[in-house]
């Protein structure tokens, strides 16, 4: 009987964790970006938080920079440049939900890079930005 309950409890827990699969950590996301960048850019030399900060705060030919909505301080609550709706902080150190859901990350990089740069961001740019955000305490 003991074996029956423990085995089924195990299977139940295993089943539940499959249902909530795809949870990631920011460092796991960074590692995935790293191998993507290494594959797509032959001269890849690693990510730079300083470059990421610059990228995040600069305009790229359009009306908005990343910081127009996420503010210059990624540890602070942002504000949507058009609608004023508050946006939770971007730095994983203060917002544990950030960079844990690959689908959500892809969706917003796609949209926001399009708005700010009129193109997709490269793995290098994404990794630089994430390195910067991970550095913010």
């Amino acid at each position, binding site marked *: 009987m003991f074996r029956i309950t423990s085995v*089924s409890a195990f299977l139940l827990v295993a089943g539940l964790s499959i249902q909530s699969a795809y949870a990631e950590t920011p460092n796991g996301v960074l590692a995935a970006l790293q191998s993507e960048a290494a594959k797509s850019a032959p001269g890849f030399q690693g990510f730079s938080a300083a470059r990421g900060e610059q990228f995040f705060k600069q305009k790229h030919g359009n009306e908005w920079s990343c910081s127009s909505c996420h503010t210059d301080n990624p540890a602070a609550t942002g504000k949507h440049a058009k609608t004023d709706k508050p946006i939770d902080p971007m730095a994983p150190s203060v917002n544990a939900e950030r960079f844990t859901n690959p689908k959500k990350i892809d969706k917003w990089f*796609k*949209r926001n890079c399009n708005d700010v740069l009129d193109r997709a961001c490269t793995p290098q740019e994404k990794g630089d930005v994430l390195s910067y955000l991970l550095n913010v305490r």
Partner: protein
Amino acid sequence: MMKNIGNVRWLIAISTLLMSITMVAAYADDDEDEGGNRSMGYERHSSRSGAGEDEGNGGKGRSSMVSNAKWKEECGSCHLAYPPRYLSADSWRAVMSGLDKHFGSNATLDPEVATEIGNFLEQNASKKQQRSTNGIEPPLRISDTKWFKSEHREVSSSIWKNPKVKSPSNCGACHTKADSGSFSEHDVRMPR
């Protein structure tokens, strides 16, 4: 040994059953929430003094607070998730077919999510044909409908110009319960 294998099969069957029960329970929860919102919306709607204002936009018995998790999440991340009842179905179809250039932003969705949200919007849309004030049909903005202009005819221009209002799309600036789908006059507080 044979007996053991039989046991394991049996265990897998039971655990699978348990897992599906937990999943079903999660879905049932969603439904209940929606039902709860529905009756709340109905009560508020029918008990308020200005009842009838919204009638053109779907009728009295219809819920002020129908909800859908994907609609709330996706439409609500940049702005208020505008209630479907304020535009007619043709407007929502037009909005959903132009998400790559959604009022100047890229708001593209996965196809399955877009279909689910589109269906939700159309099913709960205003039954009355909403007409626009600027000749562009169907209206893409709620604030471009004749109904909206008429509802807000008593709002002075100084309020519209208040930086806390910023835009007629900013419902929450005055409708303090807009976020939960209630636009009752009781809950209106003009910013100073």
